[in-house]
């Protein structure tokens, strides 16, 4: 019983949340249209959470993802304003994400700063840079090419009324890539070994420093991707728009970790974590419940999920 609660508690909680909204909002909640809507709403959080999973597999954190997402959006928007095309802006933003992520990796792996401290520092740096290069203003309107902002509104039509949003497809692709990387490649296996026992991994011939360096690069890349998705969705970029992502992403990974026997993050479990947060947001909004209540609820659910899994552990 205790072990079932430990492994499936979070999943059961997710089902209960879904059932609750299904009963409370019978007309609109359990419809294909609403679920596709949820998938689009969570797509940016999902991308950040998936790539955050990569660093958390090693037992590390990346606190800078939110401000990196903002910075990447700003960089793309500035490129657009200077008359560059969509692909140039996107490539520049992704490059900034990769370099910023690798800088985190260098600080953590080669300089030896704790990830918490290193990325707390770069969180502030990237956020400051976003304000600096944008002059603190939102970039919008005709500066943003319609090809870019149209992407978030596009999708693949499924029926006359519903379509699969492009942002959802991006998130699904990132999920697939991260899943493949973590679960099917030797790179992923090495990351899990580092998370399990860094010293043993190093002595068994794993290049711990290089892998940590690279993994943070991927996290930065994911953050930049999410920043671009956000900018496309709201057809503008402002230096604070990614700030909510970091805490939610870490929360989603933690929720996922409660579903693993070893307490290891797995990206499929992170997806459940993301969906829990997304469904709560969507359902509570439809019920016109204050967004502050959502925060209280989400916080409580995280504590509850982690508590139930650690209680299971001490008993088992």
């Amino acid at each position, binding site marked *: 019983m205790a072990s079932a609660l430990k492994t499936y508690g979070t999943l059961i909680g997710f089902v209960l949340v879904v059932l609750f909204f299904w009963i409370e909002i019978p007309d609109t909640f359990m419809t294909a249209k609403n679920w596709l809507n949820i998938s689009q709403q969570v797509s940016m959080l999902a991308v950040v959470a998936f790539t955050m999973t990569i660093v958390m597999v090693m037992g590390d954190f990346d606190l800078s993802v939110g401000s990196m997402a903002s910075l990447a959006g700003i960089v793309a928007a500035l490129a657009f304003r200077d008359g560059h095309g969509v692909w140039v802006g996107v490539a520049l933003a992704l490059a900034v994400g990769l370099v910023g992520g690798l800088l985190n990796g260098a600080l953590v792996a080669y300089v030896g700063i704790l990830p918490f401290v290193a990325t707390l520092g770069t969180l502030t740096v990237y956020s400051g840079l976003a304000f600096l290069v944008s002059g603190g203003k939102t970039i919008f309107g005709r500066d943003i090419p319609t090809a870019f902002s149209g992407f978030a509104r596009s999708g693949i039509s499924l029926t006359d009324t519903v379509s699969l949003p492009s942002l959802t497809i991006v998130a699904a692709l990132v999920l697939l890539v991260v899943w493949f990387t973590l679960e099917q490649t*030797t790179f992923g296996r090495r990351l*899990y070994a580092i*998370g399990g026992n860094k010293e043993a991994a*190093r002595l068994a011939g794993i290049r711990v420093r290089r892998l940590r360096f690279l993994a943070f690069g991927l996290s930065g890349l994911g953050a930049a991707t999410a920043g671009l998705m956000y900018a496309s969705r709201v057809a503008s970029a402002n230096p604070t728009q990614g700030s909510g992502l970091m805490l939610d992403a870490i929360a989603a990974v933690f929720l996922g970790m409660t579903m693993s026997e070893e307490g290891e993050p797995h990206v499929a479990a992170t997806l459940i974590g993301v969906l829990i947060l997304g469904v709560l947001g969507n359902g509570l909004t439809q019920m016109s419940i204050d967004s502050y209540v959502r925060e209280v609820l989400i916080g409580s659910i995280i504590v509850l999920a982690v508590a139930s899994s650690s209680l299971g552990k001490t008993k088992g």
Partner: protein
Amino acid sequence: MDGRRCRPPDRVSDMTLLSINGLDKSFAGARALGGASLEVRAGEVHALMGENGAGKSTLIKVLAGVVKPDAGAIAIDGASVTIGSPADSLRLGLRFIHQELSVVPHLSVAENIFLGRDYPRRWGVMIDWDGLNRRAAAVLAGLGVNHIPPGRKMARLSVGDQMLVKIATAFQDASVEGGAPARLYVMDEPTAALSAEESQRLFAVIRRLRAAGAGIIYVSHRLDEVMELADRLTVLRDGATVATRDIAGLQKLEVIELMIGRRFAEGYPPRLAPVSSEVALNVEGLSTAYLQDVTFEVRKGEILGLAGLEGAGQSEVIRAIVGADGGHDGAVSLAGRPVKIEEPVSAWAKGLAFLPRERRQEGLVSSASIAGNVSLPHLDDLVRFGLVLDRAAEAEQAVDLGRKVKLKSKGPRQKVRELSGGNQQKVVFARAIAGSPDVLLLDEPTRGVDVGARYDIHALLRELTAEGKAVVLASSDLPELVYMADRIIVFRDGKVATTVSTEGLDQAGLAALCFGTPTAPSA
């Protein structure tokens, strides 16, 4: 040996301090104890022996009040008692000293001894540090320990001295409110991390405790130590007590037979093939912060032993060769080719396999499976399409090598943390031989391993050397070195003190060389 001579002959009384009768305990259907009995007298050191999984830890946990037995009786001074919690255990005068130390490294010795107790005060508010240190010194002196300054930070002590402080703490618990004075000490592998010298110091303390009338239950895999220290021993096998014997007149081989229930013609497997003349590994002028100018060579099919007191350099040599602690001065060559190794990853790539000293901290990823642990240094050989891990090949590798090292498991995907210590060590061995290395560098390969697994590991070393592999074996287990190695390098203070052939060498001779005793026989 000296202890027994020094002790007044009537010291071991017939007064039974603790008696355990017919203890049964099952975990989820698996029987851990079934008919375990033990009787400890006041003023005796009673060794508790048995292979891993024989039930020693469960029995100790019952005494500690951590595990509740299904059946059986425990009596202290002839009166039946129930130990329902660790607090009960403390109240009854039982004290536990484990091999894993729980000390606060950044506090002083005195603070560790009096942790959780009221410190002496000055003017009601300020801590009277001098008073605290004086009290701690008195407690230590009570155990005959005078060389540890009570004001020193715990972290700066050797592991052995930390163990002594730990015992002092257990001793001090006597003054806990409502607690009975300590009467029975349970020591679980206390010397696992100690050097021979530190062990001797610990034994002196144990002998004092015994002389003061305490009972000591002593658990150790080191037979020689038990023969030296204990008065009687009780052997557990498969959860049941098979025998209780006086140590006097008992042969080591008898003890091993009692523990494993089968006869060994010899405690060590015989050499299978002669040593080749080809040099496999050559080390010249190896120097680091710890080591000075270490030079030696190992030939194919040879086992080279590294001996010395704890921290004399034997472990450091191995770590330096594989680049575990960064760079070093000096030259290393493999089969005559010079190699540069600054990280463990290049050691593995060049055909050097490394088995680290601390199985749990440095050897295993305990959350991963057997197959996942075995494959770790060899993942590049298990790749399809450039980056996909070939899981089937990985599992197959683990099964093949598991058979070779005589691993007992439920399958290649079983988590290693579910395995016993001996089987965990076999997983580390399987990893070491997976890439078919030319040289194996082994740091304490049989530490904390039960007798059966130890024999399996020794037999494996014979097989590997017969295949032409060279083995460097650092060990604090002197009989292992004497019987397994072809030559032994003795280290002292980071330098090679001497190199001896094991031909005609006995344990006492090797011990004398380690201590640098002038009466050492020339070998």
